């Protein structure tokens, strides 16, 4: 089993504890006694983010790969990049840190579709059982326990320890840095998946604005949607 952990294209929005949790979960899936690192963390984006990702991966005892790019892509674009790295590393299990940034949630599906792997999202616990993986998935007010056989992309929401502060990472030589071209991905073609500009995120300050923001979270009433 070779495991790749996709940490994303930007640092976590609020703290790194879910990133650490994803790395720790991946480390538990590693092949015991393997000489070479069979778990790799993958990050893409700006150099400072890659330094942070490399630092956290090293602390978790896993290898790391970084793709330096200034592209801001949609879920399909990042899915293509991660799939290319997974093929290069022969990764049969890809974990995705779903919790650190909401935009990463659909990347699970994009990676799985590119690789034609099975997928499971919203996983809160993982355990290895021979060549199978047991996963517990949060689904509404139940926990679904599933058994995965064969290659899979797994979106994880597993927290590491609470962290108030952490050392500023320094540029790491442990991370293997790749250019998109080395992955067989043409940047000019990939740029077609660039994200359109989104609205700014200034906080809503009136009841009407906040209600408008919350309206998409209102639960439909049983018996007709109204």
């Amino acid at each position: 089993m070779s495991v790749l952990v996709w940490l994303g294209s930007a640092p976590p929005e609020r703290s790194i504890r879910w990133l650490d949790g994803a790395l720790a979960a991946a480390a538990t899936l590693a092949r015991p006694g393997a000489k070479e690192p069979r778990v790799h963390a993958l990050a893409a984006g700006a150099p400072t983010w890659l330094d942070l990702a490399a630092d956290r991966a090293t602390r978790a005892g896993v290898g790391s790969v970084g793709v330096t790019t200034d592209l801001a892509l949609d879920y399909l674009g990042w899915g293509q990049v991660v799939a290319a790295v997974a093929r290069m590393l022969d990764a049969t299990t890809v974990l995705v840190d779903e919790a650190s940034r909401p935009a990463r949630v659909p990347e699970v599906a994009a990676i799985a579709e590119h690789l034609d792997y099975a997928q499971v999202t919203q996983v809160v616990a993982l355990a290895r059982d021979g060549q199978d993986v047991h996963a517990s998935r949060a689904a509404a007010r139940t926990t679904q326990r599933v058994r995965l056989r064969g290659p899979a992309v797994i979106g994880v929401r597993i927290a590491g320890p609470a962290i108030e502060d952490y050392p500023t990472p320094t540029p790491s030589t442990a991370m293997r840095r790749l250019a998109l071209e080395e992955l067989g991905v043409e940047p000019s073609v990939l740029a077609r998946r660039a994200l359109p500009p989104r609205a700014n995120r200034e906080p809503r300050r009136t009841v009407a604005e906040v209600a408008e923001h919350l309206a998409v979270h209102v639960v439909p009433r049983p018996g007709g949607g109204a």
Partner: protein
Amino acid sequence: MGAVLVHIDLDGDRPHSASVSALAAGRAVASSWGATLYAAIVTHDPEKRGTVATDVVTTLARAGADKIVVAMSDVPIAPLWGAVGTAWRGVLDHLRPRLVLFGADAPSAPELGPRTGARLAARLLLRARAVGHDEVELRDPDGGCVRIGDSGAAVALIGGRHVAPRGDDDVDVVVLETPSGESAVELVDSPAMDVVPTGGAIVALGDDVAGDPTVLREAARLASVLGATLVGGPAVASAGAVALGRVVERRAPLAPELCVLVGNASLDLAGTSSVVRLGTTGGEGVDGALRGDIGGNLARLARTLEEP
């Protein structure tokens, strides 16, 4: 104009309310765009009988469906791509829809929605509403939008409440026999869980509001509208405002999709997608902040969101 397709989850023997709401949004879009509205159900039907309960058909017809597609699967139904993905792909390949909708709070949406988008190479809106009258479009809170003139396919998870004018009971039912598939994902069991720390919505009460019955009542009302879990610290629990098992410590790892913080509630929000604060100023990463009268603002929010 191409097809608008709505995935329907079943809740027991009835369409799930979030799916019906998505169907209502689809009705508004399809009518505006001049498209045919399909409602599709994947059913476990190993004997290939191709039947679906009359009540389900009637509900979907009255909610606005032009046609109902029943995809028969020999795999037991579970809200997992690994379980229903093969059958659902059959529906997508058959209809080649321009727009696919899911109820954002329907059980299958997190698994099927993004994967459908990836399969269709579609733009994806994760929580959207149908807005407008003559020219209906879909919009999400981050500014994402799907309009009639857009090229390419789109997939949207529909949030909130949508209500369609009541349609008649006349509807075509199309039965699709989908290929058999051996799933790489086996559902072992689904035990109940008391608190949902890694999804959904939470309303968190600060200890400073534990003695204010108006705030506690209106916070519970807002939580009900949002389908949110009401949580709080030890002082709030002592006041009886949150149930046992809903007491959360400041460092508890939570990753809800939405967190509404009331008063001085302090939580580790590292995994939270959207944060709204009441009674304190905003801050970095806050989507909304209302200062001033907490109870009054909670009541106004709940009243606004309860309106049809």
